[in-house]
């Protein structure tokens, strides 16, 4: 179906979603090349013969995945990875999808603001997403709207902040929560009398 009549000419007022739909209307064998050309919200990079990196705006990512799954046979969601870019105040979500037919892996990168940290679930497209979204929710605190299960899973008895966020310092948390016990057993004393002992660099000594 030719969509150029529905949407205006590219690059002028076309939104990211429209861009993806325009590409969807093309034939399968040329859509990758079409992505290559300078499109505003979709950046395409071929890393190797089997690895493709796509950078896409967060509003167009579900549509892009739908295109990849429906038109290009990327039926296997390998993983969803989350990266906390605290300096840019953003979360990066990376969707790795694999095609058993073309034997290539597309990593679709998108960024969402850290606050409020809400994004759309892709469970309707890929059922394995339920696990990864639940995991990211637990570890990074990103909420996925429409995901079937956002309950705690691994950190059942954890009440602190999402631990994989960069601002969460494990060591500081331990120092605040627990007190250090002096540990100086008899065998260590004997060792020290002989001139040995535990070697700790001065900067690593806990006070």
């Amino acid at each position: 179906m030719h969509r150029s009549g529905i949407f205006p000419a590219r690059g002028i007022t076309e939104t990211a979603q429209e861009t993806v739909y325009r590409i969807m209307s093309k034939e399968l064998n040329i859509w990758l090349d079409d992505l290559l050309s300078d499109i505003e919200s979709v950046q395409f990079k071929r890393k190797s013969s089997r690895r493709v990196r796509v950078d896409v705006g967060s509003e167009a990512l579900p549509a892009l995945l739908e295109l990849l799954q429906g038109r290009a046979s990327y039926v296997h969601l390998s993983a969803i990875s989350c990266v906390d870019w605290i300096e840019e105040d953003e979360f990066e979500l990376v969707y790795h999808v694999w095609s058993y037919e073309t034997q290539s892996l597309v990593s679709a990168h998108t960024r969402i603001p850290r606050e409020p940290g809400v994004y759309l679930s892709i469970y309707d497209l890929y059922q394995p997403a339920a696990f990864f979204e639940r995991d990211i929710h637990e570890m990074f605190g990103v909420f996925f709207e429409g995901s079937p299960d956002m309950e705690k899973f691994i950190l059942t008895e954890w009440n602190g902040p999402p631990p994989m966020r960069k601002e969460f310092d494990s060591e500081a948390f331990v120092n605040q929560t627990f007190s250090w016990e002096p540990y100086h057993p008899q065998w260590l004393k004997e060792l020290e009398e002989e001139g040995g002992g535990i070697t700790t660099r001065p900067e690593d000594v806990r006070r």
Partner: protein
Amino acid sequence: MRPENYQARSQPPSNEFELNFGPNHPGIEGNYAFRVKLNGDEVLEARADAGYLHRGFEKLMEGRLWIQNIALVPRICVPDPVPMEVCYSLAIEEIGGLDVPERAQWIRVMQLEMSRLAAHLFAFGGHAATTGMYTPMFWGVADRDLILDRFEELTGGRVYSIYNIPGGVRRDVPDGFLERLSSLLDYLESRLPDYDNLFFTNQVFITRARDVGTMTQEQALSWGVTGPNLRATGLAFDVRRDDPYLVYDQIDFDIATEPGGDALSRNLVRRSELKQSIRILRQVIERLPSIKGPIRCPIPNPLAWNVPAGESYTRVESSKGELAYYVVSTGGDKPYRVHVRGPSSMHAVQVLEKLAVGSRLEDIAQIMFSLDACPPEVDR
């Protein structure tokens, strides 16, 4: 005596009851739990309960040097640790643009296949135990120990070898190692008919495992099933062949498939893979002496190594399925982010929850072992 505030709750009569299955249970692999709702012995609902093995690997890795993490990653999955090391090293090599010498790649393949053999021996032994047959487990563990002996000779470690390093492997193969490995393979091959007689063609096993935990190929694809479990639904997909890494594209091997999609088929696929791994190892033994050269490429001082900025998603075929690492570097001496995608994060959670429904209570353990689910890969 009842407490003062006791009030009997009246409930409608029901045959349903809830059972906590695990986290310490011989029918569960590792520490992992299930909350099952039962009617008689029929499972109505199953909910996975993970977290008993959570050690925070991904967070720990962000605070350690690139090279220190090599000692950390194999701990994620005890029965099959080598793919973790190799996959992590491959990711760093891709980001850092290192060229691994060919000899190191062949040694890695050898290590991976030894680990696969050991893991499969463990897996079918465990499955046999869930159906009340303990001898295959003893045999499997005893024969796995012989492989661990070779690991000890090659790497110094029986389970966690920590033998890989970004850029290659740590040491070359010891003198006479290949001959000893070869005679071990002869022994293992001679054991295969024994395993068949004891387990794989045993009517007790076949009757118990047939049509248990069955999934169709379509279901397997939509649930994200990979590895031997996917091949047991008839799809010949293997990362080693279809997304080749190391030197697997120079090696001749078949991809074992079974049409059934049930616990029986999954075990038969592993049985065939034992044979294929032996075949691959024989090719390695034949080729390795003729491949000369270094065993690792020069890398910067590993204690002050700033891996250039970049990201990489690397996949390998572990004995359980598709194992992947997503590694992000910002040019520092530590990884910025490492995400571990273990195959069991699908198999042990969603797939197991779905397959358990409608099965009988005593088959849950069988289904879990037939999926070769490894809970530490879920918890990380």
